[in-house]
Structures are given as structure tokens and as C-alpha cells.
């Protein structure tokens, strides 16, 4: 028997009798250091053990979908930056993908490559940020977070020098990309990507073998594969449970089939697996990026037939999805031939991955709930829209 016995999932006391005392209901959030924004968990505690957890969100609701239905297709593009504000490149791409599907717009090769480069850089940004925050939730004094931010900032500097903004890139357009990176930019990005594994190695040396990390995360917040599939969970959270489902492979979004990369799979579906999925995916992203920088073709980055303004797709519907760093990000659009979408709907991975939070947290302590939430990787801009 281990001295730190792994929690065996929901072992919730059914009876709250006189001998066991009262339950304590704590409203964690919306102002709480570890709810990653204005998220709230109404937690019912038995001592420190969670017997009930109710997620409450909507504090950051901005009416994104309705606004998008009342503005032109192009005007929604900057708003998609604000959905998952850590990964504006992929949200831009997913939206552009949906619109391109709707209007049958072609995308030139170079733009396809650039999109993959940006998406994988975004994955590095998101995952390094996530593991940093996860360790903050685990109680480090910001050290891993700041190491991660140091590397993330270098990528954000690249984004800034390319698109003008660190996080609100507004980079993709229907039929291509907005700006063509200069050779110097590509060289700088390539050098950064080549150096990135050194950061990962150091990070792993620092933390992956740490006994406290192992004890705090292994066996915590288990998620069974069948359960995850039923709930529609996607992305690294699903793959940590051992389900081989990566839209880059399944759909072959864009030019992904041209690249060699592997999809890491977890076996236990616990917090440690979810953490390791991110680390391993970052290593795969580095591989994709290195291939992309080597094989980036010359050519236009915009389809010459693309229209910036006065864009009226013919009536119809389209669903564009791709593997965002957090999971399946989809945009569903219905056009009635007018300049505005008739219906605009986002499938945010953060929200759908959040649905099983209670199941993952039951039976664990309040300290674990924070860590489990951190390992799901939510961004409230995307959850609340």
C-alpha cells in the first residue's frame, strides 16, 4: 500500500448524519486566484472533500454569437481573437475555415503552410502557458509559470512583429492570410523553434520527476475514456484518457497530412497524464514547425479572387472545425445570402471540456479541484462567449 494512496474516484459519503457534522458550501469565484478568470464553482465540502460541485459561468458573456449575426463576415474576425484570447491564431483559422467552406473559397499553398506554422506556434504558446498556470495552481511561487511565460513571450513577440499585436492577432482572412512574413521573421521563428526543446528539457528536469508533483497529480481527477467520449470532450483532455482522436489526423485539416507527427496518448486519464499530454504535444509541434519552415513554398498568401468587403456567400450552411490547442474548435454558419451570417455558432472546446468537471472532482479535496480545473485548460472568453 502506498502512503499517499491514490484517490479512487468518487467515494462520496451518502449519509450526512449527526456524527459526521455539517457540510460546508464554498463559493469559489468569480473572484478567486485559481479559477482562470471569472469562473465560479459552488463547492460543497465535507471537511476538505468535495461532495458536490456546481460550475457557474457566464460572467464574461459578451453576446459574441448574436453580434456576429449582425455584422459582416469580416467584422467578426477581430472578435474571434477574443474568444480564446491565448490562441487567437487558431480561432481566426477556424472561423476562416468555416467561411471558406461556406463560400467555396480556395486557399493558396503558402497560406496553408503559414496557417499551420501559426497554429503550431499557438499550440506552444497555449500549452506552455497552461503548464505554467497548472503549477501555479499546484502551489509553486510562480517559478514555472514565469519560465513558461519567458518562452511564450518570445513567440508573442514574433506574433507582434508579424501581425501587429501580441495576442489579438487578427491574422487570418477568408482565402489566405493577412501578412506575408519576411525571411528575417521566418529565420527568427525557426531559430526559436529549434531552441524550444531546450526549454522543454529544462522544464521537465525541474518538474516532471518531482515527487510532490507526482503525488499531487497522479490518480487525481481521473476521467474514463467512455465517459469522456460520451460528454463530447476533445483535445488533450480526451487523449489523456487514451482515446486517439486528433482532428489534425482525423480530418486532415489544411495541409496537416503533409507533415510527420505523432499523437501522444495517455493511459490513466488523470491530471498527470493531461499535463504530460501538453508537454509531449509541444515536442510534436516543434517537429511540425521544423518541417514547415523547411518546406514552406513561395507564392501568394491570398487567393486573388478573395474579396475583403462586400462578401456575400450564397445561401447554405457550413461547419468548419480544427484541432485548437484546447480541443475541437468549430464554427457553424448558416448564410441566407446576405452580408451577415444568418446563424453563427461556436463550438468552444473549453466549455465542453468543462462539463465533466464535477465528475472529475468528486471525492477529491478542494486543493485537487483547483488543479483539475487547471488541467482541463479553460479560457473564460471562450466558455462564456
Amino acid at each position, binding site marked *: 500500500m502506498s502512503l499517499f494512496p491514490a484517490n479512487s474516484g468518487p467515494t462520496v459519503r451518502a449519509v450526512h448524519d449527526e456524527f459526521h457534522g455539517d457540510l460546508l458550501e464554498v463559493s469559489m469565484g468569480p473572484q478567486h486566484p485559481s479559477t482562470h478568470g471569472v469562473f465560479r464553482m459552488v463547492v460543497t465540502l465535507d471537511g476538505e472533500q468535495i461532495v458536490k460541485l456546481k460550475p457557474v459561468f457566464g460572467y464574461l458573456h459578451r453576446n459574441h454569437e448574436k453580434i456576429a449575426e449582425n455584422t459582416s463576415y469580416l467584422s467578426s474576425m477581430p472578435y474571434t481573437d477574443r474568444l480564446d484570447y491565448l490562441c487567437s491564431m487558431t480561432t481566426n483559422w477556424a472561423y476562416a475555415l468555416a467561411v471558406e467552406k461556406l463560400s467555396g473559397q480556395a486557399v493558396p499553398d503558402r497560406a496553408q503552410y503559414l496557417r499551420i506554422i501559426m497554429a503550431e506556434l499557438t499550440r506552444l504558446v497555449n500549452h506552455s502557458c497552461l503548464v505554467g498556470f497548472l503549477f501555479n495552481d499546484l502551489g509553486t511561487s510562480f517559478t514555472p509559470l514565469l519560465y513558461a511565460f519567458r518562452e511564450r513571450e518570445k513567440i508573442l513577440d514574433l506574433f507582434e512583429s508579424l501581425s501587429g499585436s501580441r495576442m489579438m492577432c487578427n491574422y487570418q482572412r477568408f482565402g489566405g492570410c493577412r501578412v506575408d512574413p519576411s525571411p528575417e521573421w521566418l529565420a527568427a521563428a525557426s531559430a526559436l523553434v529549434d531552441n524550444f526543446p531546450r526549454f522543454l528539457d529544462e522544464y521537465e528536469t525541474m518538474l516532471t520527476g518531482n515527487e510532490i508533483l507526482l503525488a*499531487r497529480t497522479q490518480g487525481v481527477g481521473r476521467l474514463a475514456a467512455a465517459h469522456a467520449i460520451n460528454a463530447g470532450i476533445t483535445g488533450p483532455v480526451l487523449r489523456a484518457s487514451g482515446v486517439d482522436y486528433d482532428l489534425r489526423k482525423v480530418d486532415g485539416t489544411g495541409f496537416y497530412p503533409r507533415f510527420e507527427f505523432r499523437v501522444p496518448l495517455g493511459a490513466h486519464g488523470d491530471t498527470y497524464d493531461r499535463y504530460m499530454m501538453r508537454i509531449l504535444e509541444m515536442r510534436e509541434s516543434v517537429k511540425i514547425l521544423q518541417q514547415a519552415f523547411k518546406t514552406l513554398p513561395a507564392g501568394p498568401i491570398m487567393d486573388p479572387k478573395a474579396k475583403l468587403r462586400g462578401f456575400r456567400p450564397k445561401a447554405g450552411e457550413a461547419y468548419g472545425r480544427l484541432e485548437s490547442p484546447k480541443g475541437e474548435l468549430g464554427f457553424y454558419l448558416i448564410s441566407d445570402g446576405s452580408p451577415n451570417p444568418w446563424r453563427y455558432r461556436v463550438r468552444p472546446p473549453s466549455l465542453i471540456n468543462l462539463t465533466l468537471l464535477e465528475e472529475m472532482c468528486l471525492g477529491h479535496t478542494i486543493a485537487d479541484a483547483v488543479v483539475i480545473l487547471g488541467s482541463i485548460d479553460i479560457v473564460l472568453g471562450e466558455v462564456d462567449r
Partner: protein
Amino acid sequence: MSVVATDSFLERAPLLFRDWIVGHFPVALQWLVHHLLTITAILTVFGLFFAFTTIAERKLLARLQNRLGPNRSGLPWFRTLKLWGLTQPFADAIKAITKEDIVPAVADQVLHFLAPVVIVAFSLLGFAVLPFGRYLIPVELDAAILYFFAAGTATELAIFMAGWGSRNKYSLLAAMRALAQLISYELPLILSVVPVVLVTGTLSTRDIALAQGGWTWGVLPHWHVFTPWGFAGFLIFLVAALAESNRSPFDLPEAESELIAGHLTEYSGFKYALFFMAEYFGLTALSGLGITVFLGGWQAPCAFLEFIPSWLWFMGKLAGMIVFFIWIRGTLLRLRIDQLTRLAWQFLVPLALLNLGNAAFWALTSGWTGPLALARWAISAAIVIVPFFLLGRRLTAGYAPRTYRYAA
């Protein structure tokens, strides 16, 4: 022991200064002035030490995290003089004093007020028995070690008062955690010191420091930490001291990411600063005890370095301990409450008990010389290392870094 440099002027300077001041007072009042001066000296020295510990912590943590740390605050009216931000603690103090003191309407007013007072008062008591130098010991008590631990127990009581008195759910959880933590770690903390008491045969801090004097070949100090049982005891002491002073990775009562600020959630302004102060006083006092008991107290590490006054050695070691604690804080994660108590009861306490036996063995075999001395070392080392491995393996059973498969 060499008497060469030990009675230098510098060595006696603080005492001479005190006697000079005391001499100005009438004889009837001299004892009072004597004690008041001692108290003032401790408050001043460790007040300043606390102030600069905060800035050192912020700067060192910043450097560990590849930041610069606070470097802006200089002096009023001298805008160009930045002083590397060393005046930051004074700016912080002014800020803390001038901030509004908020007391929740439903809080238990008495306990809410009393908690910071009690915690600072009790965290200062421990300094009374620490030998800061060869001649610098505020109060010579026969049962000094016992006194030290007795003085420290009330701090967690104060944390409980703060947590319960705030009428805040996070504070209450923190109070429960503080209680559990105290009960768990008081034992290994005391048990880690008992072997030293056993070997030196005294509870007096002065005698324990004296017992570690002398050097082999003039360079190898006879500190307790350089014996197998002493090393093990020191490690246990370090872990327990971290837990007792609520430092990372055992900062559960104020676990920022879980309980916002734990028992400090409802405190603001100067009361918050008092808690902060007490935490550092407690840490400093415990470090001082660790130095006295394991690291040779005020003794110099080499014979030829004895010309440096003993109190400087003590303060130097103290600074080293604090830096080590900051380094730990910059690296480690927080344990969970059940793991915390398990670590104490199922790892530290058995190890400390075994170490007690180890010290008894060491005391009994003090006559072994020649090859037997080597055997003594080997046996003593084995007594701690083997259980360490076995208990450690049990502790981490089921936890290991994993290898992952990739989708085909």
C-alpha cells in the same frame, strides 16, 4: 579550545556597549535597563533582519524566476539614488501602516484583533534563548530547548484565532489546516532535536553550541550536522521547520491558489503586516535554533577563521538558512493536506524515532577508536539511510514518471 582570538574587542563589543549604557543609570535601575536593552537590541536587529529578509526574498525569488525584482524605491528627495531598491521594506511598512484596517462586520471582533498581536508576541519569544554569539545569549535557561518549543506553540493557536475569528469560509478551512499541521509537525520537530539533547546531555542552548566547538586538523568542525544522526536530524528538522513556519511547500493554511489567502483573507493593512512579520520571525527563530543545534551555533567552520566575531558567524549562517528557504520556496509545489500529515506521521516520525536510537548508539560507542570508529560511522549511517530508502519507497509507491505511447 583556543583562546587566541575569542576574546577580541569585536567579540565583546556588543556587551561592552551595553555595559557602557547601563553604567549611566542608578544601580537600582540597572537590572531593568539591562533587560530592556537586550529586548531593544533583539527587536531592532531582528526587526531590521525581517525587513531585509522580505526584500531579499523578493529579489532572490525574482532572480530564480529570471526577473529583476524590486529595484525602484530609493530615498525621498534623492531621485537619482536608487540603492538597488533596498529601501523597499520601509516603503512597504509605510504603506501597511497607512492602509485602511478592515474588520468584517460579522467577524469575532476580539479574536480578529487578538490574533495578530498574539502571533507576533509569541513568535518573538523564541529569540530569548538563542545564543547569538559566544557571550551573547539574552536569557540563559537550563531548559532552553523546551522553552523554545513551548513559546512556538502559540503561533498556530493564533492562526486558528485569525481563521475562526474572520468568519470566512476560506479562513475557517485554513484554521483547520493550521491545527492539523501543528499537531503533525510539532512531534517530528521536537524529535529531530532530541538526539542532540541525548548526545550532549543538556537542554541548554549555550551548552549545545559549546559542545560543537573544536576542529579536527583545524578545518573539520565538530558540528552535529557532520555526523550521520546529526545529518538525518537536520534534514528532519528542516522539513518540520518549513511546516511549522508555514513556508512553501507546506504553506497550506494560506494556500494562495486554493484558499485565496487562508487565514489572512480578511486582514488588511498593518494587521496583515503583523502576520507577515510573525511568519518571518518564526522562520528566523527556527533557523536560529537549527543553527545552534546542528550547525555549530556561533562556532567558526575553521580554526583560522575564528578571528571573525562569533555573532557574525551566527548571522551569516542565519542568512544562509534563509536563502536556502527562499530557494526551496522558489522551486517546490505545495503538498495536499492529507499528504502533509502522512508525510509527518508515516515518514518523519518513524525516521526521527529511529534517529533517536541512532544517537543513543552513537553516545554509547563514543569510546570506539581506530577501525572501530569507521564501523561506528558505517553502522550509524546505515541506521538512517536504510529506513530512509525503505520508507521513501513506501511513500512514493505507485508514483513514478510515466512513459507514453503514441497513436499509430
